[in-house]
């Protein structure tokens, strides 16, 4: 079966006064229909930029997509220009995005209802009555009570959690095949986060769309994603099923990341082991492995070149010269 979306060797750069920043440096991944994948990494690793490239929302200047293919439903989206009719018909209708900041993602001068109705009328060619009805249904489905009344409310009248729900409703309104959620819960409280993720999963099951969760929070992808891609310095350093990546990590960065995060269920005495050093400089990339300066296993590393992704298990890849095996994440008591 062909994957719904296949990204091959995507490269995105930013032209700055300090030099050319290689924000995304040869990223390849895929997602099947109905799948939920997680794209994890810290700030600056390129995860958000790569998703913006898929929908061609990268401001040019200073950003530029300089290589790769984005094959969605058999078509290479990069063949179309960012403001072309084809891309506009894809955005919102076939691929939609949910952003981190629900406050600024909505236009404050239009009601929430108006903003949900807009794509419905544009993409699904519904008339205003029908679109409004559909908007109310959607708001009810995402758990907003009194939807009939609240559809006329303005963004500032909604709480953070409710705005994010409305954002989900808007993203799903035209039955997209792929939903990209970029840090959807980072700005929310932990109980609201659980609610929002629950709704997103329910909707995904109901509408049978694929979901990409981009986040730095390892926990939420452990709970909800089937496959994980770990990114660092603009590339994918490890990929595999959630079980594989969390319980059998094969890249020093993944291992280090898991060791540096406290777990709610572990022995308290465990010392958190931070990743030494600073995040990488994306302008002057070294010719060898970009993680080497911070890698605790650097002394054992014989490879001089930039490692390629190689297979270490069933659909489990790592970008590391060493054939290391990590321990399961944290120590599991009892």
């Amino acid at each position, binding site marked *: 079966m062909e994957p719904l979306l296949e990204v091959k060797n995507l490269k995105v750069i930013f032209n700055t006064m300090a030099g050319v920043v290689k924000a995304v440096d040869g990223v390849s991944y895929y997602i099947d229909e109905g799948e939920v994948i997680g794209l994890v990494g810290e700030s600056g690793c390129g995860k958000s930029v790569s998703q913006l490239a898929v929908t061609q929302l990268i401001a040019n200047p200073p950003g530029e997509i300089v290589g790769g293919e984005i094959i969605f439903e058999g078509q290479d989206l990069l063949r179309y220009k960012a403001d072309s009719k084809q891309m506009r018909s894809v955005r919102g209708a076939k691929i939609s995005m949910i952003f981190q900041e629900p406050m600024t993602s909505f236009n404050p001068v239009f009601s929430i209802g108006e903003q949900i109705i807009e794509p419905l009328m544009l993409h699904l060619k519904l008339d205003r009555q029908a679109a409004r009805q559909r908007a109310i249904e959607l708001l009810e489905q995402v758990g907003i009570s009194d939807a009939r009344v609240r559809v006329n409310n303005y963004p500032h009248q909604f709480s953070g959690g409710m705005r994010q729900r409305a954002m989900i409703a808007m993203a799903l309104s035209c039955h997209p095949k792929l939903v990209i959620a970029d840090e959807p819960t980072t700005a929310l409280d932990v*109980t609201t986060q659980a609610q929002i993720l629950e709704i997103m999963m329910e909707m995904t099951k109901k509408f049978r769309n694929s979901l990409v969760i981009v986040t*730095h929070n390892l*926990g939420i992808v*452990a709970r909800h994603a089937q496959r994980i891609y770990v990114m660092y310095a603009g590339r994918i350093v490890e990929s595999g099923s959630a079980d594989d990546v969390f319980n059998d990590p094969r890249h020093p960065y993944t291992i280090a990341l898991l060791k540096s995060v*406290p777990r709610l269920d572990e022995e308290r005495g465990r010392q*958190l082991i931070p990743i030494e050093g600073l995040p990488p400089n994306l302008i002057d990339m070294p010719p060898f492995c970009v993680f080497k300066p911070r890698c605790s296993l650097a002394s054992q590393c014989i490879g001089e070149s930039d490692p390629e992704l190689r297979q270490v298990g069933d659909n489990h890849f790592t970008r590391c010269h060493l054939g290391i095996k990590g321990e399961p994440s944290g120590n599991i008591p009892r």
Partner: protein
Amino acid sequence: METSPDNTLVEVKNLKMYFPVTQGVLRRKIGDVKAVDDVSFKIRQGETLGLVGESGCGKTTVGRCILRIYQPTSGQIILEGQDITKLPRNKVQRLRYKMQLVFQDPYGSLDPRQSAGSIVGEPLKVHHLCPDPQEYRKKVEGLFTLVGLNPEMTNRYPHEFSGGQRQRIGIARALSCSPLFIVCDEPISALDVSIQAQIINLLQELQKKLRLTYLLIAHDLSVVRHVSDNIAVMYLGHIVELTDWKELYENPLMPYTQALLSAVPIPDPRVERKRERIILKGDVPSPLNPPAGCPFHPRCWMAIPDCSKQLPQLRQVAPNHMVACIRV
């Protein structure tokens, strides 16, 4: 250092902080935002009390009241046995060297026009602690080293440092006058995951080395559990559960605490699949209009009619375990 016989350094008694809501040109008061509504706890010297809760619960306000940034509406704040609640501003400023604050935002909490060394050394200047310039310079460099920064960077400006480094500058500033008590207000939530561990370790090291007492305000329960001796859970201005870290995790009694714990994600798919999930209904009510009786009852699955009638008091149900719930 003076402490009471049971070694309490900081005590908060029945703290209330109400912010008036005004309307109209003449600023008529129409109500109060009850940010903190009758909160009491003690922190012993050398300990860490973790204060957790979600937005609007009042935890940040509690920290600021203790530091006398706000003037509490009522209640008492006792530092080293001294009641500092009603002291006038100039006296409070003179006590400042004893209690300090580490901020959440490493970008906004440092004056962009001040060099890092000047930021760290400013408390020394303000309290006239190091008149000799040579000694001052050495002290500042010493502080840099203490927090893991290169002492040659004292002339650089904040924008030349990374987020984690700026947080270290903030911590160095808090330590410069050798305080007894530090309020850490979300010290790591604005940092990258891999840097968070560096700062958590640093804070713990410093606590051991300098015998500091911390009030850690955070919303990340995993971190709070890792670092705190005791944990207080807040909801809408009230403490709903107060106990030690072990007990809180193994035996949470208040339904809100249980929901909070179940919502914290654990980076392990096998564990996650087996976990019980409590998904709360609705949103946190506004502190302008809190529900009658127990603030949590509209969202509580164990609520009975009595829950809306009276505000549950924090009572002891086991040694060092207090809960504010009538159903427990």
